[in-house]
């Protein structure tokens, strides 16, 4: 099945933030007022109610020139998604488009995905049920998978007026990124394509004007080693151990019945009588 990619060329972005409200509008997300952050940026990072945030960065490049950089930041939809790996409820899954989605019916709000996302894009939201009892659900960008299913593009891409965002098959988008990179290398010598292989590549692919660290992105993100140790080793082994112990005891019970007949039945009874 063809995989799709949201291709973000940050050098074309003019920071209008239509993507932020388009997302809220389509997904019916409430506003989330914040304190003044000292720049034009509205939120420090993505949250459960703000699935994409426009970053504004003032960066002095190697030549001492000022660069005013913008980045639409949202879920990367990793090919090897740590969130999917650690979710204990199988609430997180890959879609046929390549997006990674959270099934809200299955999510129990444990927050494992929140802590393990290498990009820190997932957050928990607290709700109140009709009895006033609180419960939590994990949220992040869905890549508008509901729109994809109807043949529409993600809301953020649809509204982007500078062409900084495009949506299409991976085969079509990656060469575009390559081509764009060669065009902008003159102006941005540190420009790079951000499609980190440590997580198997992502379905949000960036052309960045500067090194990933300038945008606060990990240079080489991976599924955390702890998550691998935990999910690929500890948990299966743990389950096996539990199984083995149980089997051993079942065995013990049976053999006791078989071989320990003459045994200490009276004394057992005696012991029991003291309860």
């Amino acid at each position, binding site marked *: 099945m*063809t995989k*799709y990619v949201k291709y973000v060329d940050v050098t074309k972005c003019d920071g*209008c*933030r*239509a993507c*932020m*409200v*388009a997302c809220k*509008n*389509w997904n019916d997300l409430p506003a989330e007022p914040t304190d003044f952050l000292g720049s034009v940026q509205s939120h420090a990072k993505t949250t459960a109610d703000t699935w994409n945030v426009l970053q504004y960065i003032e960066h002095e490049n190697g030549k001492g020139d000022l660069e005013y950089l913008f980045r639409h930041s949202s879920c990367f939809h990793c090919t090897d998604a740590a969130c999917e790996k650690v979710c204990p409820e199988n609430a997180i899954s890959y879609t*046929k*488009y390549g997006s990674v989605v959270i*099934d809200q*019916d299955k999510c129990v709000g444990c927050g494992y995905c929140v802590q393990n996302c290498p990009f820190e894009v997932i957050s928990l939201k607290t709700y109140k049920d009709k009895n006033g009892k609180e419960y939590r659900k994990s949220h992040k960008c869905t890549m508008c*998978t*509901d729109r*994809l*299913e*109807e*043949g*529409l*593009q993600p*809301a953020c891409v*649809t*509204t*982007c*007026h500078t062409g900084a965002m495009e*949506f*299409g*098959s991976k085969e079509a988008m990656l060469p575009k990124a390559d081509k764009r990179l060669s065009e902008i290398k003159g102006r941005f010598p540190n420009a790079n394509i951000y499609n980190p292989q440590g997580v198997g590549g992502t379905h949000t692919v960036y052309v960045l004007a500067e090194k990933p660290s300038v945008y606060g992105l990990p240079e080489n993100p991976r599924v955390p080693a702890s998550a691998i140790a935990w999910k690929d080793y500890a948990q299966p082994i743990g389950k096996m151990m539990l199984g083995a112990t149980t089997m051993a005891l079942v065995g013990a019970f049976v053999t006791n019945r078989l071989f320990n007949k003459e045994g200490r039945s009276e004394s057992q009874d005696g012991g029991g009588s003291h309860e």
Partner: protein
Amino acid sequence: MVEMNLNRRQFLKLSGATAATLAIVELGFNEKKAYAKTKEFKIAKATVTPTICCYCGVGCGILVHTKNNTVVYTEGDPDNPINEGKLCSKGTTLRQLYTSEKRLTKPLYRAPGSNKWEEKDWDWMLDTIAKRTKETRDSSFVEMENGITVNKTEKIASLGGAALDNEETYLLSKLMRGLGVVYLEHQARI
């Protein structure tokens, strides 16, 4: 009335995925049960009306999706050659012009010296406004000035209108001048 070719350019050729999904939905065995079960596609049964953005002077086209007597979504009009379906943050948010809890929904009156609004009905408001307009006009109307006909009142001002429709500005311009108002301004200067 409105000739529309909705979302034409927005459709993505998902290698037949669309057709397949739709067909499956129709047949009633959508493989994506989770979505189909709990959530109807947001704009599936909405009415779509084209409008023009009410903010800056670029004149972008916007589609307003309405359902169950509320606005459920607003997005760029892909057919409008000015913006080709694209919008800025303000245009994208048009929906909240309708849904905002801060919208005024009733005529409000504040009496002289009062520290609060009172709700009034439209008829009372417009009658009283007409009365005040007439009182002021009648007491200040100048027919002749230095021997020439001037037919004006310099005690009433009308300000604003740069966000009104053309037809409204026309009637406003006509009404105010008909009453003799010379302090007539909109926001071109500010």
